[in-house]
């Protein structure tokens, strides 16, 4: 069974793009349009990886990350924070809240592939 990746982004365009890339790499995907929906999703299905955007309505990425970690999901999903935020403090904040990796927007297939390789998901694709 290939790894399941939950794409969390308020932009349909970006969700769709990420979806295409990840599927192209052989992963299974699911989408959520904000942090709250992602948390709801994880209540019933634990993904292997969460590609998490920062700026979103209802619940933003950092709150979602904290919520996900507080849920102590088993097996623990890898969380990759996406951000265009350019302050170093943001990335540190994300890492401290339990993110495993971060990725700068805009990313493309190769960048994403590298990240997946780093978190060890590519071999599960």
């Amino acid at each position, binding site marked *: *069974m290939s790894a399941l990746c939950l794409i969390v982004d308020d932009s349909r365009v970006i969700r*769709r793009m990420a979806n295409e890339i990840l599927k192209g790499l052989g992963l299974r995907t699911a989408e959520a349009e904000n942090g709250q929906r992602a948390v709801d999703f994880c209540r019933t299905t634990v993904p*292997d990886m969460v590609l998490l955007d920062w700026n979103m309505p209802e619940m933003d990425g950092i709150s979602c990350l904290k919520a996900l970690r507080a849920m102590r999901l088993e097996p623990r999903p890898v969380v990759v924070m996406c951000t265009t935020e350019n302050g170093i403090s943001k990335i540190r904040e994300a890492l401290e809240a339990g993110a495993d990796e971060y990725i700068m927007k805009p990313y493309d297939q190769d960048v994403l592939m590298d990240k997946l390789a780093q978190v*060890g998901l590519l071999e599960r694709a």
Partner: protein
Amino acid sequence: MDDLLQEFLSETTESLAVLDVELVRFERESSDATILSNIFRLMHTIKGTCGFLGLPRLGAVAHAGENILGKFRDGELEVTPRAVTLILKAIDQIRVLLAEMESTGVEPAGSDAELIDEINAAASGAAGAAPAPAMPEAAADGPAFSDEGFPVAAELLAEVAHALKHDSQPVPESPAPAPEAPRAAEPVRAPEAAPRAADAPREGEAKELANSSIRVNVDVIENLMTLISELVLTRNQLLQMQRGQKDNEFKVPLQRLSHITSDLQDGVTRMRMQPIGNAWNKLPRIVRDLGVSTGKKIELTMQGADTELDRQVLEMIKDPLTHMVRNSADHGIEDGIQRLAAGKPETGTIALNAYHESGHIFIRIADDGKGLDLERIRQKAITNGLATEAAIAGMSEQQILQFIFRPGFSTAEKVTSVSGRGVGMDVVRTNIERIGGTIELTSVAGKGTTFLIKIPLTLAIVSALIVEAGSQRFAIPQLNVVELVGVSDRSDVRIETINTSPVLRLRDRLLPLVSLRGVLGLEAGSRATDRFVIVAQVGANTFGIIVDRVFDTEEIVVKPVAPLLRGTPFYVGNTILGDGSVIMILDPNGLSQAAGQIEHSDQTATQDQNGRTGSQSGDQTSFLLFRTAGHELKAIPLELVARIEGLDAAIIEHVGDGRHVVQYRDHLMPLVPFDAGHQWKQRGQQETLVFSDNGRSMGLAVDEVVDIVRDRMAIELSSARAGLLGSAIIAGKAVDIVDVGHFLTQAFADWFDTSVAQYTTRHALLVDDSPFFRNLVAPLLTAANWKVTTAADGAEALKLREAGHQFDVIISDIEMPNLDGLALASAIRNDPRWNKVPLIALSSHAEEGDIHAGREAGFDEYLAKSDQTRLTENLARVLRLAGRGEANDNLKRAS
């Protein structure tokens, strides 16, 4: 076009619409951090997505917008109208770029440096520090990352900056070689080796969002709607086939199919529903911009934005609504100084309100401005040749206001960039009427103007009656059809003419008619003398449409009328029938006006104005105009006149003391002259108006019947002369209104005392689920001196029994919901309270078996609804018996 780009265009367009609204809100409530963070996020998302798709020009504009919004958010910059205007400008520019991409599929070349510089200047100017635009700033931040041990991030950042600076280069041109990057994060856990049992069922689930709504392309829904329309048509065909058959095994499944089809139709109609707020989105921005450009303070309030209506309807009213709000802001609301001088708050208000009521949507647009300038409208109407000075002098304020709906009418003194766009209120009204809506206008000088729009929820599928005229079939919306009357030259029910206008005598009333063949200029298809009159109602206006044949009612799918036929007022659209033929759907509104024009061709001008307002306010009455010796015109409300007869003077008999009678329909009918000194002719024809009631008739001898006209009933009462109620202006002429009662009592002293006057008033209970039939029968009873109580079904009737009511006769329909007539009869017969009361059944089924069943259940008499004449006669006979308390015995003996 690339799917992804298409998706981007639609997503960004939605975001921009929200941005417009939110920004205007934000300007007013600049302290609200939630609104600001929402705005910032939307702009940020647009910028971010541009990066992904390699849209540097768009991204740069969005970035500038985000930059200044960021300054707002961080409190570095004060929110000023100028700054907000700049952001709105950025949004507009994004829109322009999107529009171009929509048509070409690629981002247009060029640069928006000027706008971006302006925005950045505003962003930095007030902030004092940070003079550089944000992008280089971001790039400059890059190296800092490497200090912290994040070289990849820095590289990427630089790349972003690079891409955004160089318009021509798509972003992810050279992917970052990142594998060697040291990772700050904790080591990633090894992937779980053990297969998880739950994985398989989750496969499908995972594809779905944890989300209760999905996005569906409009085309898909439209297509579905078309398919359902076809399904409806097929179902109709099946039902039609089944109708002629005896009960068979198809009946039940067919009924089920029918129900499911209806439910499906409802479901898809609901799917097409959208909140009206979607049409309102742009308005706050428009009002805001207008306020800024005209220096007025205007507040726009919106209520009921979540009121839902059909997409198609929504599209049709979008532009009219925008136009009206723009008008209100531009012309309606005064500037602050004028408002203060008038004792009004400085800020003007435009209030939008939408709500559902009785299957329609009502939208109210009200402003508290200066109201419409009556004097200007009046002058404009004269200058533009819309009406003569004399005609306007006789008009009410309301009538004058209607001129703004005339083509080519605009009250603006100067054509501003705002409302001078060639769209007038005439277009607004046309658009609204095209979807079967109406628009009403009220205006109070100094207080403001209010428009009330009423539109149907959906246009897609309506129930219609299929008719034929001149070998062509047409559909008439069932909503407007009151009843059908078969007419024949050989029978009593026939079409007569008064001064070339066709009329029909219907239950002692004269109904103005319009021939469908006539107005549409069709050749006579068959020489059949048997034709049908569709009694149609538009507002309070009832008229008849003459057709050759009547088929059936069908659920039809309304397709818009071809542009070629828009000029004719008689069609609302066309449809495809079950057998595949295409037919036109008639517009009863247009036909009723045609009926009006045909009626008095010599007064077209007056009719035009009155007809228009009349169909909206609906307080018009048809009058019969005639002349007597005095030459002045006299008028009688048409509905009082049963017939107009040209009696042969030779058959009029003089019966002493100045009284005249004539043999009329096997009875002697008294004739009363309008003028006491009337000279009875010896030969030729005597024009006579026949009045009938309660089986008796009398004739009023007049010199000449002139015309039938429709107008307002505005009688100035005066008792100058016996026989006249007063005078009125009808169709522009001064006429005397005749007091018919005066002449009736001359003929029959006891006209108003009915034939059963010797009995005390008795009380009848009329039970029928059809309001139409109740309305038909109740007056017959009242005329026979019965007091009438009505009930809609058996259960309702029994409630009256529980409440202790007593009746002298009970007349009941057989087929009714809740408790039918047979059950009601049994219930009545088995309870001492009402078991002595005569019971009469009125039913559309009067076969031998039905009558037997009725008798069994306890009915004393069984009458058929279908036979109008016999019904009246029998009812009178039975009632007379019942009135004497003999009904029971007599009827029992008879059976």
